[in-house]
């Protein structure tokens, strides 16, 4: 009886906790307009909403210690010329404080990808805490939004290496 009582109490706390965490989270979903944030780039410049307006783009939030993010970046690098031809931009942002962990940092991460990572249509930057809370409230280390030229989110997913076909289809449709 005592065990049953404890089990029920823990289950109730878990359900309450989940409900509380969900209630606090204002999630972006497909069909929403992408938030009009200005993103700070690694080179000190700023990507403003006006720079992205009218262009299809992939807004990607990564942690610099995340291995699937590195593989995903290599996959994007292999296709970056095709994305450029179709006028698709990539905005890759390191999540605030690397989600609380000490990673190698985004500059080292970018260098590891190679020369393609410095393509003109690929912006690398840092997401602020506020931006991270809005764009990645669940704290996933590898999440991206595909945003159409009209500014609305058309897909939300993670791990581009595993979901490349979706990004490719987005780029083809965007043209």
């Amino acid at each position, binding site marked *: 009886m005592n065990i049953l009582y404890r089990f029920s109490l823990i289950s109730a*706390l*878990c359900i*309450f*906790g*989940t409900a*509380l*965490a*969900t209630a*606090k*989270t204002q999630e972006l979903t497909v069909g929403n307009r992408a938030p009009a944030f200005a993103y700070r780039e690694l080179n000190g410049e700023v990507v403003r909403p006006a720079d992205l307006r009218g262009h299809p783009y992939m807004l990607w939030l990564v*942690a610099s*210690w*995340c*291995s*699937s*993010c590195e*593989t995903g970046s290599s996959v994007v690098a292999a296709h970056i010329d095709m994305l450029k031809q179709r006028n698709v931009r990539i905005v890759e942002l390191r*999540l*605030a*404080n*690397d*989600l*609380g*962990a*000490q*990673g190698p940092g985004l500059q080292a991460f970018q260098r590891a990808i190679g020369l393609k990572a410095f393509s003109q249509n690929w912006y690398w930057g840092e997401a602020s*805490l506020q931006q*991270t*809370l809005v764009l*990645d*409230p*669940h*704290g*996933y*280390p*590898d999440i991206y939004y595909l945003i159409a030229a009209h500014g609305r989110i058309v897909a939300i997913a*993670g*791990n581009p*290496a*595993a979901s490349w076909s979706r990004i490719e289809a987005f780029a083809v449709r965007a043209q």
Partner: protein
Amino acid sequence: MVGQVARGFSLTFTGSRKTGALLMLFVGGAGATTFYLFLLPSPAVGGISPVALHYLTPPLTMLAILFGFGLSATLALNFSAVKRSKASGAAGLGGLLTSVLPASLCCTSVVPSLLALAGASAPTIIGSTGKIQSIFALHENVFLGASLTAVLVAVVLAARNAASSCGVTGQVI
């Protein structure tokens, strides 16, 4: 010790119940190896997926074979012994669990979801989930090394157990 291990293998895989033991070794080993072939490269794609096979390297393939056949050999050796070796079973299970950790906890939604389930707020999750997940991402090789050691220890313990177990039964008979 090497002699005892060899004797354990010999008694299990050439003895009177060799058919069952060999079947367990090869069928179980092939199945477990297939599982590991998908599992080991999965951190690269953030989860177990057929796409992970694209990121399979020769060292990972070798590890998958060692893990797969190591675990099936442990099972076959333990089943052939009169009394199961608890230490070997624990080492084998430890090896299995340690090898699964980087793939399941490194770059997936598992840790943030568990934190959310525990009632952590979004700022808390964002400020702490990386501390846990990055351990598995940055030290993946350490986890794989520990798994390999545990599986090898499990095989040795199971073989020694099989050898000593057969010796005991021989005396009784």
